């Protein structure tokens, strides 16, 4: 009697969980989940998004890196340009001043 009950319980459990297991296999990622498919095709999600590793912080970090790199470089270029313009102006002023003084000396002599 006990053996019969255990067999019935096992059969019942199989019948109950088999559809759930089959449905799990048929979930959104299953049909094209081979590594090759993942490397060759990007497809849009259908339904809700469930992730084991949170992608949000990784995405945020990646975009932060892009903007920090680009804006940092633009700021660096702006400073470099300002410094060189100043330096060029200083040299040109110094050269003009000395040249003017030399011309004055020549005209006196």
């Amino acid at each position: 009697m006990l053996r019969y009950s255990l067999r019935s319980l096992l059969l019942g459990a199989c019948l109950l969980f088999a559809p759930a297991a089959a449905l799990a296999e048929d979930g959104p990622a299953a049909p094209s989940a081979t590594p090759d498919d993942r490397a060759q095709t990007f497809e849009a999600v259908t339904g809700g998004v469930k992730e084991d590793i949170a992608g949000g912080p990784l995405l945020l970090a990646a975009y932060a890196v892009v903007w920090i790199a680009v804006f940092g470089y633009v700021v660096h270029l702006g400073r470099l340009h300002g410094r060189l313009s100043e330096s060029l102006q200083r040299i040109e002023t110094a050269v003009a001043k000395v040249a003017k003084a030399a011309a004055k000396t020549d005209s006196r002599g």
Partner: protein
Amino acid sequence: MTQPTSQRTPLALTLLIVVSAALCLAVLYAIFVVAPVERQMGVVQKIFYFHVPSAYAMYIGFTVSAVSSAVYLAKHDERWDGFAVAGAEVGSIFCIVVLVTGPLWARKAWGTYWTWDPRLTTTLLAGMVFFAYLVLRSFGSIGEVEKRFAAGLAVFGLLDLPIIHFSVQRWRGTHPTVITAKGGGLHPDMRPALILGFLFFSALVALLIWQRARIERLRQRCEALEVDAAERGLLEEG
């Protein structure tokens, strides 16, 4: 005080700035509003829209540097040397972006930040060659011999670019091949974000190289004036 003609921003450069800003807004809208979330990787796949165009911008920067270096070696014209420095510097910025955003995507897709995949390794190698070029060029006022050596290094770096590009086809690694001939392609709603990404990064890389080359010309002019004034004894007092 009015700026000298050589220092004024050309109209085309101003237009390029406006176009880049407009494309930047358009690409952000396309990525975060229009493009759907990818089925297997989720939101982290959106790194792809900046990662791939960054790699493309890196190719442009390094190619400009190598080609300009080759012309400089042939003609000894300082203008080409300016473009070579600009290309190497801008290409290196985008190389850093590629080498940082790629591992952030890989953490989710592969479960690890880095793997010695052929494409990753050859990209790192290209970055190291052009970083070496920039280190060499950063030693203050370098002479003609050092400039020519650096130019040779940039030309050598160019050899690595086709290897990066074809590495995923020749040596099958783990790097995705979504938009290559072997790949299965993108969902149609994802295409506008990628196309706009390419356009934005093309405009951005052109803008940065152009501006950096102008600054390098300014530095060369300063250096030439200083040397000239020193030779004539005009700067001894100050």
